[in-house]
């Protein structure tokens, strides 16, 4: 029965009373989802995607409440159910796979009993054999081996945990599955595998699926219909083809345009022609001299040598999956994580054997932007503390007024209103604003080298382009060299002068981005590029015969590919 709606939302409004007045998180939302259809909810954080999903589950956080409208789940009025009826409905008829599902497994229970709990809660006590068969079947259907059931959550990888959560969700054949950013914490390769699993299983049980996310590419590859939400309002709804090919609402157009594409139009300032200011230096700015890092028996980084000259500022991208050793490399460069062998030299001096004065100079000149913009500010202080403290500490300040002016200039340079932002506390700002403040901080200190470790992976898609062009401006206008650590090949393609692809602690392919990413030769680079979800229906992603294992196997054996050099960066590997 493809025509019966599994979910009908009519004029759904959700209110959150606050001291400043009632905030309408969702405004008169009407939507119908047919059985077997996949619908994507897309929008920025705060647009009401998750709130709508939680309202369907009747799990709204206090003090939120449905103020108007109806939720009809395949003929049942969800809002009229009693608490006990609702409990029975959850999971058996509508399953919710929460955001960061990997943290929602009980760490002290094996996987199997957690699944049995779900069955017992709905169907009463069943013989152990039946339970075991049920959980094994569910695990098999998401492509996990049967012995997974006997493991504890910490013994599973992120992708496996996510699949266990999907297995839990489909255990009772629900009419509707709600997946709230199921892959936001996973890297591209795993993301593609998990999305395939989710789509396969949804097709098999023929349920409806709501996929919540903010990545237009992922949506284009995984859903049939798209609902675009902005500030709690449904601004556009239609099939994926309609929306991707001919977006009507300006917000949708923005969303689509904000996805950086390999080979596509650049999102950076068009006038790249102006040469970046040069610095004079004799010694290489940063030199890795046979640096490796091992943790016990695990080698995070194989011996690696390179030299980054200081005279021409440039952006070197280090690309790889999680666990490829790229963040270890960042930590080693910053002087936080001493290498097991080899030396890290900053302008000819060993970073790990510096005196106090040299160390302060190194700190001033090598700065960082971290992944998590939420943790970077001390919640006790106003955000201006994070900007003014290092400025004074490094002796750049010539008095209070000077510091204030420098902060205001830096904020303006990254497109923030200083009067609005600086006197606030960190929790009053959005993730994007905070990350831009960190970039402004780097700008104020004007270091020689900036290490940007996944600076945009926790920021809304629509803001990524802005922050990246802020970072790019650091090089272009202020002559700061940048090491950009990322898993996102598309952005690396646009911003960098040189790309290194890291796989299991080794450089497997390196060269100018046009060659490495535009025309990959190493199987691992190909695997990474294949995994990118394109917001383009003509570049399908979900072919079923895609086997990352084969490519990865090939990648183990393949030799590293070096594709030409850029002046000022010399890479040697052994």
């Amino acid at each position, binding site marked *: 029965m493809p025509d019966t709606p599994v979910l009908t939302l009519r004029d759904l409004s959700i209110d959150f009373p606050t*001291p400043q007045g*009632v905030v309408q998180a969702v405004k008169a939302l009407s939507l119908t989802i047919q059985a077997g259809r996949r619908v994507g909810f897309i929008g920025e954080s705060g647009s009401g995607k998750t709130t709508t999903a939680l309202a369907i589950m009747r799990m709204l956080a*206090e003090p939120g409440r449905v103020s108007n409208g109806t939720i009809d789940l395949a003929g049942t009025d969800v809002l009229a159910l009693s608490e006990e009826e609702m409990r029975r409905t959850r999971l058996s008829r509508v399953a919710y796979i929460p955001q960061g599902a990997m943290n929602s497994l009980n760490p002290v229970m094996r996987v199997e009993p957690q699944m049995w709990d779900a069955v017992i809660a709905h169907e009463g006590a069943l013989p152990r054999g039946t339970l075991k068969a049920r959980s094994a079947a569910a695990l098999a259907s998401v492509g996990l081996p049967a012995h997974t059931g006997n493991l504890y959550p910490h013994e599973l990888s992120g992708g496996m945990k996510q699949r266990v959560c999907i297995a839990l969700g489909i255990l009772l054949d629900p009419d509707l599955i709600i997946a709230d950013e199921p892959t936001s914490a996973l890297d591209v390769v795993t993301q593609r595998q998990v999305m395939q699993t989710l789509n396969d299983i949804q097709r098999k049980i023929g349920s409806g699926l709501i996929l919540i996310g903010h990545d237009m590419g992922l949506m284009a590859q995984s859903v049939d219909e798209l609902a675009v939400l902005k500030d709690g309002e449904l601004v556009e709804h239609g099939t994926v083809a309609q929306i991707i090919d001919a977006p009507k609402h300006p917000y949708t157009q923005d969303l689509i345009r904000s996805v950086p594409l390999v080979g596509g139009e650049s999102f950076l300032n068009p006038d790249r022609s102006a040469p970046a200011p040069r610095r004079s230096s004799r010694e290489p700015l940063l030199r890795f001299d046979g640096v490796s890092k091992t943790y016990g028996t695990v080698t995070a980084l194989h011996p690696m040598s390179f030299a980054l000259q200081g005279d021409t500022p440039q952006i070197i991208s280090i690309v790889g999956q999680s666990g490829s050793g790229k963040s270890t490399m960042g930590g080693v460069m910053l002087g936080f994580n001493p290498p097991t062998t080899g030396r890290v030299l900053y302008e000819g001096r060993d970073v790990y054997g510096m005196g106090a004065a040299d160390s302060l100079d190194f*700190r*001033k000149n090598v700065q*960082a932007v*971290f992944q998590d913009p939420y943790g*970077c500010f001390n919640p*006790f202080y106003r955000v201006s503390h994070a900007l003014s403290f290092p400025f004074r500490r490094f002796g750049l300040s010539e008095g209070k007024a000077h510091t204030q002016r420098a902060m205001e200039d830096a904020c303006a340079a990254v497109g923030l209103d200083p009067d609005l932002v600086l006197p606030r506390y960190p929790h009053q700002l959005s993730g994007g604003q905070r990350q831009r403040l960190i970039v402004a901080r780097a700008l104020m200190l004007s270091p020689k080298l900036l290490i940007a470790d996944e600076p945009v992976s926790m920021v809304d898609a629509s803001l990524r382009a802005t922050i990246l062009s802020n970072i790019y401006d650091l090089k272009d206008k202020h002559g700061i060299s940048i090491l950009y650590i990322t898993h996102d090949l598309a952005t690396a393609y646009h911003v960098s002068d040189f790309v290194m692809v890291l796989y299991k602690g080794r450089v497997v392919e390196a060269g100018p981005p046009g060659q490495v990413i535009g025309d990959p030769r190493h199987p691992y680079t190909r695997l990474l590029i294949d995994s990118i979800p394109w917001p383009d229906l003509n570049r399908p992603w979900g072919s079923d015969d895609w086997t990352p294992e084969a490519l990865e196997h090939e990648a183990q054996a393949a030799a590293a590919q070096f594709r030409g050099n850029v002046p000022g960066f010399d890479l040697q590997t052994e």
Partner: protein
Amino acid sequence: MTRTSSEAQSGRTPPSRADRRQTRRLRRFDSPWMNPKLFWGLGLLLGIVAIGLLGRLFWNLDLVFTGSNTLKLPPVGFENLRRQEGTWINPLGTDGSGRDMLALIIMGAPNSLFVGLLASLIGMTTGIVLGFTAGFVGGRVDDTIRVLSDVMITIPPLLILVVFQSAFGDVSLTMMALLIAGFVWQSPTRLIRAQVLSMKRSGYVQMAQLSGASVPHIMFREMMPNLVPYLFGSFIASVTTAIVTAVGLEVLGLGPQRIPTLGRTIYEAINAGALIQNLWWWWGLPTLLLGVMFIGLLLINLGLDEVSNPRLRKLS
């Protein structure tokens, strides 16, 4: 669209009582220090301090000496077993050796609080220093401090203190506070060590390191302010423990011999058979005051808990 706007207008009717109460709760949610539990708890403790201060100004404290009046007089409005009525000369009655109860309480109640505060102040300071050292330095130092505090936690303090106090004979209040302090530093040490360990890896500490901050700066300017709610909570908890320990010792007759304390008054009452002679005011009044003190501390602790942990702040 028209529908939503008309609804917004209908929402502007004067707020009902329930709505106003909701708003008040929300306001409390926003300014956590306006916590009724905290107020009541502080009020009770300040009340006890006030008894001590005002009493010294307005009451004749010479009445604490033995035989200053008739023995075993009841409070005003009551009769004792000898059919004597309470008089305004001793509004709360007298004890078995004719000491005025009011004067005893005025002298004794602040003493108990003083021992508790001093002991936990010393204990907390030790705990902060050791906790920060262990968390920050790590390695051998951390092992030593951790094992030491773990071992000390398992030792029942009263047992050791009984031995100590009987060896010392008569002790001063400060001496007793010092001895008790030796048993209240362990849990703050562990608490702070755990917090420091998790904070050390946080983004803002890394940022401070990148900003060239010195170790003392990171400890006291970046980490410490975020620990304040925990420190307060832990402080109040150790004040409670310290008072319980002090009173325990006093009731056993092991506290200061020459200074009136609430515990010592109870000890003397029990010794003189006040329970059998129905001299309830003798042991009852100090117990009541101790009860008030503990309830005050408990309320402050609960209040601070809600302040530092927003999840406990209920909206409904």
